[in-house]
């Protein structure tokens, strides 16, 4: 996998976030302030533009640029969180022109670590962590078990969606939803939902690699 994989990943995220924009807004309106869909769409639209301008950078560098772009265009909680996540993930790849499955797992693990570090959320707090952490673990486990990267990332997507659905019964402890206390129970977390979209987008990008 190489720079094209990253560019495709970002384009895939942009189109699926745009397609799911209203759904994400509805989810956020129920337990937040109704802007998650707009925030993510605005951010990844800017990322796609930024990467279009960038020609010939290595994949790690592209992820850093994508992260910076999110930080500088999204605002809200998701901007700095996903922004730092992609920056951290990009640094893992350094200047390598290509990367393999294990390195991809390292990228996602670094992204997860930076989200948890910045946001201080743990599994079960009803945040994006609840989708991202199971995805990282599934990816690692399947690769360790010798599965090909496509199968492993497919499992990661399934794990992310399971984690996303698992947020429904939870009471939020982080983010705006936590202000609702028990009223946050019974609603799916918007950030976990967009995270599942992001992992599924990665799966398509990996599948389409040259």
């Amino acid at each position, binding site marked *: 996998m190489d720079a094209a994989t990253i560019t495709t990943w970002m384009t895939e995220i942009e189109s699926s976030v745009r397609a799911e924009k209203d759904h994400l807004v509805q989810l956020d309106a129920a337990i937040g302030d*109704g802007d998650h869909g707009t925030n993510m769409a605005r951010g990844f639209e800017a990322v796609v533009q930024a990467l279009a301008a960038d020609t010939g950078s290595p994949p790690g560098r592209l992820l850093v640029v994508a992260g910076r772009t999110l930080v500088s265009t999204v605002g809200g909680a998701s901007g700095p969180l996903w922004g730092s996540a992609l920056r951290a993930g990009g640094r893992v790849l350094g200047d390598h022109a290509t990367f393999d499955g294990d390195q991809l797992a390292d990228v996602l693990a670094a992204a997860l670590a930076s989200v948890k570090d910045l946001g201080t959320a743990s599994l079960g707090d009803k945040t994006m962590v609840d989708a991202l952490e199971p995805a990282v673990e599934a990816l690692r486990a399947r690769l360790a078990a010798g599965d090909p990267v496509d199968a492993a990332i497919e499992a990661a997507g399934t794990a992310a969606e399971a984690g996303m659905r698992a947020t429904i019964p939870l009471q939020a402890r982080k983010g705006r939803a936590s202000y609702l206390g028990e009223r946050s129970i019974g609603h799916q977390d918007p950030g976990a939902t967009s995270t599942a979209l992001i992992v599924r987008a990665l799966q398509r990008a990996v599948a389409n690699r040259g």
Partner: protein
Amino acid sequence: MAVETNLMRKFLNEPALVVKQSLAGLAAAHPDLLRYDAAAQIVVRKDAPKKGKVALISGGGSGHEPLHGGFVGTGMLDAACPGEVFTSPVPAQMLAATKAVDGGAGVVHIVKNYTGDVLNFKLAAEDAADEGVKVTSVVIDDDVAVQDSLYTAGRRGVGATVLAEKIAGAAAESGAGLAQVTDTVKRVNERARSFGVALSSCVPPASGKPIFDLPEGEIELGIGIHGEPGRKRATLQSASDVVDVMVDAVISDLKPRSGSNLLVFVNGMGGTPLIELYLLYGEVDAKLRKAGLKPVRNLVGSYITSLEMAGASLTVLELDDELTRLWDAPVHTPALRWGV
């Protein structure tokens, strides 16, 4: 766009431009006080940077007007960073504002406690430090409707933000140093508590739809300022019943010394007119006096709003002589002005 505006009872052009166009209007109305840097999307005190003066900046999502842009001026904020409606600004805005107002004595970031605001201000403070600006940050979290805990995002920052900006702004204007101004913000936050109620939702221009739907005759108790639903929903009671809920929530948490002097801030959420806010103030004032407390200062009006939401919030600050003196000190901003 026509479609979207038709869903709303708003004066609006392109919804995506509402924040920029409103800020342009603010600057056109108050050129003597502030300027609007459209490129950086920040509102800056006209005479900034003031050499040797500690600077205060704040920011957050828009939709809370006059907060924060309406509080830029003499004796209050040096700059404001308005994000999109209900979305915190990005670090680039806070960094630009910090550099625009730094007079060498340091810059205080007043941050309302929302994950988005906190994280974006955090990244901005790191960048500012990298560029050699002394920055301190204080997070405001006065909303007693939110149960606090080590393991949660904690309480929201609401009404106390206005009081902290005025009082710490006066300290900075009077020449206090970075540590002292920072400490003043903290003291206001420690001695202030708030509680809000909504009689309607509000309609963000981008979506054109109410965030939650509140049938007539129902009321949301314990709301914030982003149109988010409250802690619980109840049937609408009389104003004095609502005041009982607000005062009890605030006072039981603040636990002021008996007989202590209070600053009482009755705030409208944007769609509630002054006739109702004064009615509420009368009930609050009487109830506090009955409880042996002394409302010696007050602020009644819509200063930290949630678009056109119908509702109100109560903020009580326990005063000492210094906080009182700083509150009384001259202020000249679009939204608050006295002594000058």
